[in-house]
């Protein structure tokens, strides 16, 4: 169609053929004059999309602000909303005197894109929530993560309230942009927040539109938050009873939680609730374990006058921090001023071994009260263990009664039941084993015990240890045992050190030997006669034992410490 043809007047109505062709098109078309933007034709699709727009009207003054502006400004593109529909229009020139606006209804397309974006954001949010919530078994951290996620993605402020324990309810809250706060509330005030008692009582969540935001008590949020526009209270599902409730608030008069918001909050609350209740379960277990541990862990060592006692205990497994190795100290009783120390090893590991350890320690404590000597303690303990019905384990241990002798010396009377003999580090740096021997405890009815006595001069030390130390595997092959020879050597290198430093050094050398985590329990107890004079550490004679001479170093590079 040639619009420049002089046969067609500028304002003449379009020919019937042109009309029919444009009416058949799916696209909405407005044909306008280039001179004054008068609409000369509105096709059928355009009439359906823009009812009321007639030929003869001006496109620059039409009821669509976007179209009117684009027309006056000469733009070739506009978007607009008209009667609930989203429109996208392109202008195309049609010869010198006319142009056409070609309009598309993009309502559905935009809605789909928006729904997709929202879904994607929800997925990303829930994935992050899952990752962060599943990371910790600590309840406080789970609560913190919950309010952080909720305040970042779901509302302007989030408060988690836990079910009341002993009439007190713990809470944690976060207002977006502020820092996390926590505290406790009396159970009686919980009812002041609309929907909170129901949520904590395990009832189905109440839709946000039924909760009157104006009823929110002043204590729920800081004053700076201002008026609450919308409130949503969601239960945090737990182990058959709610783990708590999540209170979400948005500020501003027009605020609201849509149905999608409520659904998302519920899905999030399910994950948060699972994490919080798992953490609560873990906390209960830890509390129980702590109570049991308190009696089974090595005791804090007393420091009797004139004797230095140093202990070191390393459990293979940390979950319980107790195992088959143990040591204990029993102070003087009425009839005897001696301090009695014991170090032993119950066959096996884990809780069963720990329980037997507890029994052995208790038996020995009682025997100490009747002033039994070390050999007698072992004999009675053996009978007691054999007499107990559930006993399929044996014990090795060393018992020593410590007393002070003249000139700052310390005397030890020892007896062993199948345990490695303690080593004595003399002042001149030699190391000798205490000549004791005896049968293991808890296997045969009659045991033989050969006690011995040693005296320590000031600065000398006697080391009791469990076989986890000498059986630690490492070295070049990674499978070689540390062995008593190396232990003696290690101890010899501690001559002149304070007791604590000597024990720490032996621990360190064994750790270096295994070149990684120690796999077995290791217990050490050192008895030392305190040095009375200044240590004679001044004279150093370092021989170079290896081509690299780093023997002396053994992992020490303090030269580079800060």
């Amino acid at each position, binding site marked *: 169609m040639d619009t420049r043809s002089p046969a067609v007047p500028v304002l003449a109505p379009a020919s019937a053929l042109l009309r029919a062709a444009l009416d058949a098109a799916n696209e909405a078309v407005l044909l306008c004059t280039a001179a004054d933007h008068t609409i000369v034709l509105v096709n059928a699709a355009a009439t359906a999309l823009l009812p009321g727009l007639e030929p003869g009207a001006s496109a620059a003054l039409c009821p669509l602000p976007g179209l009117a502006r684009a027309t006056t400004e000469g733009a070739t593109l506009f978007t607009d909303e008209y009667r609930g529909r989203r429109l996208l229009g392109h202008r195309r020139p049609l010869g010198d005197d006319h142009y056409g606006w070609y309009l598309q209804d993009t309502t559905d397309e935009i809605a789909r894109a928006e729904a997709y974006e929202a879904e994607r954001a929800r997925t990303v949010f829930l994935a992050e929530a899952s990752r962060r919530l599943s990371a910790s078994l600590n309840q406080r951290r789970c609560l913190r*993560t919950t309010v952080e996620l909720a305040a970042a993605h779901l509302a302007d402020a989030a408060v988690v309230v836990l079910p009341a324990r002993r009439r007190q309810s713990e809470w944690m809250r976060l207002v977006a942009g502020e820092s996390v706060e926590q505290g406790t509330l009396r159970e009686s005030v919980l009812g002041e927040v609309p929907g909170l008692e129901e949520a904590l009582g395990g009832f189905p969540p109440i839709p946000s539109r039924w909760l009157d935001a104006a009823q929110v008590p002043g204590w729920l949020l800081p004053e700076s938050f201002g008026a609450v526009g919308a409130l949503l209270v969601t239960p945090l599902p737990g182990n058959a009873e709610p783990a708590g409730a999540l209170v979400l608030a948005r500020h501003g008069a027009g605020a609201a939680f849509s149905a999608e918001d409520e659904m998302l909050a519920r899905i999030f609350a399910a994950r948060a609730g699972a994490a919080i209740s798992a953490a609560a379960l873990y906390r209960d277990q830890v509390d129980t374990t702590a109570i049991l541990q308190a009696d089974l862990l090595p005791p804090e060592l007393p420091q009797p006058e004139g004797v230095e006692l140093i202990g070191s205990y390393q459990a293979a497994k940390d979950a319980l921090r107790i195992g088959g190795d143990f040591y204990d100290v029993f102070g003087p009783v009425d009839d005897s001023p001696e301090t009695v120390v014991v170090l032993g090893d119950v066959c096996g590991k884990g809780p069963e071994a720990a329980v037997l350890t507890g029994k052995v320690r208790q038996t020995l404590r009682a025997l100490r009260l009747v002033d039994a000597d070390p050999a007698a303690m072992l004999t009675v303990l053996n009978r007691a263990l054999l007499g107990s019905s559930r006993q399929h384990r044996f014990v090795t241990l060393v018992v020593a009664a410590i007393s002070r002798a003249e000139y700052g010396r310390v005397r030890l009377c020892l007896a062993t039941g199948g345990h490695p003999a303690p080593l004595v580090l003399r002042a001149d740096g030699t190391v000798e084993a205490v000549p004791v021997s005896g049968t293991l405890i808890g296997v045969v009815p009659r045991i033989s015990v050969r006690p011995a006595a040693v005296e320590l001069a000031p600065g000398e030390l006697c080391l009791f240890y469990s076989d986890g130390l000498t059986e630690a595997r490492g070295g070049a092959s990674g499978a070689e045992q540390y062995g008593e020879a190396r232990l003696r050597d290690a101890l010899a290198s501690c001559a002149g050190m304070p007791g604590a*430093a000597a024990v720490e050094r032996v621990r360190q050398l064994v750790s*270096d030997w295994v*070149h990684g985590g120690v796999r077995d329990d290791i217990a050490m107890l050192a008895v030392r006669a305190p040095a009375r004079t200044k240590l004679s550490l001044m004279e150093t004679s370092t021989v170079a034992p290896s081509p690299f001479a*780093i*023997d002396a170093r*053994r992992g020490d590079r*303090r030269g580079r410490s*800060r």
Partner: protein
Amino acid sequence: MTVSTTTPPRSLDDPGVGEQYLRLVGDGDEYGAVEIVTALLDNGVPPARVMLDLIARTQSRVGELWAANDWSIAREHAATAISERALGAVAARSSVRPTRGRITVACVDGEWHALPVRILGEMLRLDGWRVDFLGASVPGPHLVTHLHQTGPDAVALSCMLATRLPRAHAAITACRSVGVPVIAGGPGFGPEGRWAQRLGADAWAANAEIAVHRLARDWPPPIDDPYQAAFLGDDEYTHLVRHRGDLVSTALTRLTQAYPPMGRYNQRQHDATVEDLGHVVDFLAAALYVGDEQVFTDFVEWTAAVLEARSVPPVALQIGLKLMRDQLRDYPAAIAIIDAGVAALRR
């Protein structure tokens, strides 16, 4: 020995106070050392200054004295034990009500230098933190169990030796994946904490004072996905670690052939040589792990200095490096790092 009954010091500026304290810890004189610390506190010297300018400074002097072969290992250990007691005396004198969050302070698994982190722990306590001090050589699983049980706001992790970097990395990743950010410290993390960043630590501090400042502002930082940096090292690193025993044993056999007197070594000398060769492998592995040859060249230079102080010719170290190099022909990155070490030795 001269009697050390000089008048108690009034301030850290008193001439000779550092020397006097050094002499006392070196003699294992716990009472004397604690007396100095107590006198300084009595005269109003802030506890932080006593810890940093006296105890910590003396500790690095002790390290230097050992490296220069002036002090024996026993004396160094004794001095450290005394300094721990002196630190305990400072701590006992100053109690602060916790106003900040809770923090866990620990040494990496295999790391035994606990005094610097103990000082950090005390500094943080003075700054109002609730501090859990887990001590030397904390295995990763123990650390994580502790985090689940206490839920701290930060972990301060110390690493003095670069060979512990792979284990430090495992600990850092574990802490961050339970949502606890990590501040790293100690020379093991490299110059300017370069390797701390590589391992994903949220912050690094050159010393205790800087760490306290860093933790006092905008903490905790947001934690990104901890598994983004969960794997470092490559197949060469894996080979080296998996064959550590073979590499050391082979080197030892060849060393005996090249150096006959080794055949007469006793157990102790033998073990020491095994350990030294093990160090070469460990530092090499750490260098491959973080992808920086400086881990290895630093080790070589430092070892050479220690050997020199003990009148051992550097050729011994050269032989050790060569024995490792010969076994790693198919591993170009490892070879390049060893060559850089050999070059450092020539300088």
